[in-house]
């Protein structure tokens, strides 16, 4: 996928992520094959594929939590000013420390940077306000619903002002209604301050709703089958619009046979 010309903040140096010929195998099992992909700045790239296609592995590689056997992953350009952690994850299971409050969980990401007490408190107050969590600063994770927990994780990611957000099925552990609400939240956050993101999901509706580009991976070993671009701006996307419905239908056509084959493969394994 070629980076688009229309950057959101022209003149500002930004960072993009470039993957070239990334391949990986666990033991003798090949999981990723020859992935070449660019994540342009200011846009959300969704990665979809059947279960076990290596999409989460690919995301872990993008953030440096895992090393590919072959190929390279490059960050091009400088991260934005004030960025504390260029590549920042939001995990499916939230990964909040149960012994820390909401504010404490966010400060965990800041403490090692020695910002000073006031600056740190400012950042925490700001991200809590942006995610609608200001009233919950002192709550412990066990007191929160799944949706609130994921909002805390998103706030923690925003606190370090990342160059690229890496979201690993962030809504998959939530129920359908909460998922809708959080999608609205993410769109709102992006519209107010566009961020660069890689969003891994197996849910095509999420991909069509949030993705500027949707990368479809084949079943194992995961390779790029197609990249579907959606030009409609995020904030005006109406899921009942025939164009979007057609895109989702097209994605399902691509995925269906792969998913069926992947399903049968697992059953035989």
């Amino acid at each position, binding site marked *: 996928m070629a980076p688009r010309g229309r950057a959101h903040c022209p003149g500002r140096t930004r960072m993009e992520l470039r993957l070239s010929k990334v391949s990986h195998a666990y033991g003798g099992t090949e999981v990723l094959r020859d992935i070449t992909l660019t994540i342009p700045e200011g846009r959300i790239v969704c990665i979809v594929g059947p279960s076990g296609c290596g999409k989460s592995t690919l995301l872990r590689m993008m*953030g440096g*939590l895992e090393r590919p056997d072959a190929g390279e992953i490059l960050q091009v350009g400088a991260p934005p000013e004030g960025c*504390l*952690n260029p*590549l*920042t*994850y939001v*995990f499916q*299971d939230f*990964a909040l*420390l*149960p*012994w*820390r409050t909401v504010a404490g969980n966010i400060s*965990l*990401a800041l*403490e*090692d940077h020695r910002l000073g007490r006031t600056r740190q408190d400012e950042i925490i107050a700001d991200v809590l306000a942006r995610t609608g969590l200001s009233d919950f600063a002192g709550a*412990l*994770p*066990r007191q929160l619903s799944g949706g609130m927990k994921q909002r805390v994780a998103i706030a*923690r990611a925003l606190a*370090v002002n990342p160059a690229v957000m890496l979201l690993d099925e962030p809504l998959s552990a939530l129920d359908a209604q909460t998922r809708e609400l959080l999608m609205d939240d993410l769109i709102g956050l992006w519209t107010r301050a566009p961020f660069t993101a890689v969003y891994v999901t197996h849910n095509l509706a999420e991909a069509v709703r949030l993705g500027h580009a949707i990368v479809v991976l084949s079943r194992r070993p995961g390779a790029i089958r197609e990249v579907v671009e959606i030009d409609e701006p995020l904030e005006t996307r109406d899921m009942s619009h025939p164009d979007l419905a057609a895109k989702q239908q097209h994605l399902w056509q691509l995925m269906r046979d792969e998913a069926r084959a992947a399903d049968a493969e697992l059953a035989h394994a």
Partner: protein
Amino acid sequence: MPETRPVPFRGGGFRPQTRRWVGLVVFAALIALAEWGTRTGWISNLTLPRPSDVLATFGELWESGLLFKHLGPSLSRLAVGAALGASVGISVGVLIGLFSYVRAGLVPLVAALFPIPKIALLPLFVIWFGIDEGSKYALIAFGTFTPTVVATYGAVDNVDRTLIRMGQSFGLGWWSIVRKIVLPGAMPGILSGLRVSLAIAIILLVAAEMLGAEYGIGAYILEAGSLYDLERLFAGVVILSVLGVAVSAAITQIEKRLLNWRN
């Protein structure tokens, strides 16, 4: 008309609930039974001392000031020995949990040391650390050390790895991850291990004091036992039980403070 009946209830149970006074009632009932038995002659005085006599003995012990003469040295031996054993045990356990080489080197050693009855090593400790307090500290410390190590590295192993990956993904340093993620995550396991270790420490305290101690609960029990003075023997045993309950209650309090994030 078809047969109509309510759906029978078959859920419930398997959920422990707090029943505050049941424990005390069981205690009181057993003591009352012993008192009644010894008074009516159904239980002979040689089999079991009369609870009221034990209480009287305890009262004498209190009034003569001998209680604190025995309790003082015992408590200080317990405190020093257990603190030494537990702190070294927690440190070694964390190291085993964090470093593969330490694990490979020390886990077999700990497994070899664990089943040794530490009391059997008392003569050795007397040679190494002297007949005075040193050997008693060493025995208690050694006895608390092994169960603490095993509980601690198990607890470190059980810390959620996704939390550690999260820490790494935010660029936290190694020491930050250990201090802010691994140690708090292992704390529940470490504390429940400490519960067992400290009970073992009390057992070893008595064993240590049975050899060459003038004062101490163990010395007191040994002396009473050799004279077949069952009232004093039981008074000593009751002190040990109370000590055990107190230690356990103290750990419960620590758990309440440190682990209030759980429930």
